[in-house]
């Protein structure tokens, strides 16, 4: 490309300005990527949800329970492959800020419904025989440095006076699905059932069932809810992704918040770089006029200006993404598991670069068109 020298010479015209503009891009991209990562962390439950799973909750609300007998009745509905049930344990390990989800599981059916969770067979067998056993996701195990065989005390005050439940760590699970959860702590329903007050005995917090075919979802959900209609425990059945979306909403409308901040970042960057490009083009009106007089076409003038802003956007964007790749794992660690795992995916990096280039093109376009339309005689007369 014959014009690169001219484009680069123009770029380095004002070095401080160049650095500042590239810096704005880098910081905006860092912020943009961080927002995208957080947003995806919150919506990941929805993304990785099994299309062939339904979640049954008490119609009144998630914290209301249902009789344990519902399990067999659900299992008998045509189209249902397997059913399991859970409870939210809601305990605290050492300190409130050490949050991770503790889920009461039904060991007999857990693996049929959730084939993506991988536990070595020997560990799983130990767990089955150990009423006080627990299996924990690899991420949480790593976070607290737990090893199989450790004794884990968890305080709980949801079921009467505060009491410490002791668990034996029997196994560590991984998730086959990229981005899937590896933070939960599983305990046995039998142990739970023995130690909770009477009203909670023989209950399930929610049911999860696996379908023979995702096509049956609507029909099965309706059948379940119809079956328990007018009972004292009416149900609400939805797909796992709808359930996960509802669950994420508990944190407030994160998506809206992130979109709002993201838009502010976008328009600020656009204004800053658009203004910079406009100034930098205006400064060399006479030079551009000379180029036109020499025979540079209007289109090549537009090209010169656009190429300049795109190079700035590309370099700044790339820098921001590199910063993000370095910073996001650190930020994730500092947040101490408060948020779901922050994962910077390739598609997010690509999206970030597209975003940067889009802003670059947009900010170069107006000054570029101005330069393209500028009349040589007027521009030269001005000097």
């Amino acid at each position: 490309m014959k014009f690169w020298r001219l484009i680069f010479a123009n770029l380095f015209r004002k070095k401080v300005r160049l650095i500042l503009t590239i810096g704005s891009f880098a910081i905006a991209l860092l912020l943009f990527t961080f927002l995208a990562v957080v947003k995806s962390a919150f919506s990941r439950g929805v993304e990785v949800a099994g299309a062939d799973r339904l979640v049954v909750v008490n119609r009144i609300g998630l914290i209301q329970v249902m009789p344990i007998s519902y399990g067999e009745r659900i299992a008998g509905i045509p189209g249902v492959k397997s059913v399991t049930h859970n409870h939210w344990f809601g305990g605290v390990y050492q300190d409130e800020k050490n949050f991770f989800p503790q889920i009461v599981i039904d060991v007999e059916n857990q693996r049929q419904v959730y084939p993506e969770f991988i536990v070595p067979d020997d560990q799983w067998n130990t767990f089955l025989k150990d009423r006080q056993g627990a299996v924990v996701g690899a991420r949480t195990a790593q976070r607290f440095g737990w090893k199989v065989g450790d004794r884990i005390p968890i305080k709980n005050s949801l079921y009467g006076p505060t009491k410490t439940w002791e668990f034996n760590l029997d196994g560590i699970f991984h998730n086959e699905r990229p981005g899937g959860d590896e933070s939960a702590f599983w305990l046995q329903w039998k142990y739970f059932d023995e130690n909770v007050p009477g009203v909670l005995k023989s209950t399930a917090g929610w049911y999860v069932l696996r379908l023979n075919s995702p096509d049956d979802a609507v029909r099965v959900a309706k059948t379940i809810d119809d079956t328990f209609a007018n009972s004292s425990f009416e149900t609400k059945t939805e797909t796992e992704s709808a359930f996960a979306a509802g669950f994420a909403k508990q944190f407030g409308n994160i998506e809206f918040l992130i979109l709002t901040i993201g838009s502010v970042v976008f328009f600020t960057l656009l204004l800053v770089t658009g203004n910079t490009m406009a100034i930098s083009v205006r400064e060399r009106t006479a030079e551009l006029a000379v180029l036109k007089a020499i025979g540079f076409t209007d289109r090549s003038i537009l090209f010169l200006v656009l190429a300049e802003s795109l190079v700035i956007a590309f370099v700044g964007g790339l820098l921001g993404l590199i910063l993000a790749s370095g910073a996001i794992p650190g930020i994730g660690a500092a947040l101490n598991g408060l948020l779901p795992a922050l994962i910077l995916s390739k598609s997010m990096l690509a999206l970030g670069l597209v975003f940067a280039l889009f802003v670059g093109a947009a900010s170069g376009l107006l000054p570029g068109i101005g330069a393209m339309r500028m009349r040589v005689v007027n521009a030269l007369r001005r000097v």
Partner: protein
Amino acid sequence: MIRVDGRSDSQSLIRARGLNKTYSRGGEKIQVLQGLNLDVDKGDFVAFMGPSGSGKTTLLNLLGGLDVPSAGSITVDGDEITHMSGSKLTQWRARHVGFIFQMYNLIPVLTAFQNVELPLLLTKLSKSERRKHVETALAVVSLADRMHHYPRQLSGGQEQRVAIARAIVSDPTFLLCDEPTGDLDRKSADEIMVLIDQLVSKYGKTVLMVTHDPVVATRAHTTLHLEKGVLVEGKASHERVLAGGAA
């Protein structure tokens, strides 16, 4: 032969007929050129003089295809440029016109070499061919030893010589110079004029130059005066020189 009566029958290189240029400023119309005729042959060197605001720059802009007349026609080497579209005209300029402005107008972030190379970037020449042309042009203006200097590292006279090299590098049909010495001291101005003189006498270039300096004008074969929107022939009288020089 240079004529301003519009009666030349031979095919002249540059032929302007009945040129009118009207500007409107705040609703008021200013007639700058009023039926101007001009014939310039290949190898001619003509100087335009006239008081400031008489329309000299306007005339050069029209002849160089930077602006279009309100009426009349301009034909260069058989091509009528007054009816060309914008992009066609741009291409035509690249091939046929070399511009030299008063304010040098070099790109400050490019070296002398790179500045001179600019017009060649629009051609199909290879890199090594471009290099040869640029070096030749810089040798003609005696700046071969300064080709990697930036404009700020050159004197005003040297900058103008780079601009001249840029104007001749693509071997255009004719050169347009708008007060090429207007910003230079006497000595540098003389050097520039010797150079332009050489371009005509040694290399057979056709040069149309605006100047308000009667000494500079004496270099030209013919000096034409822009008066009331038309060109008037004849070596300047002393009074006219003074009037022109006062621009």
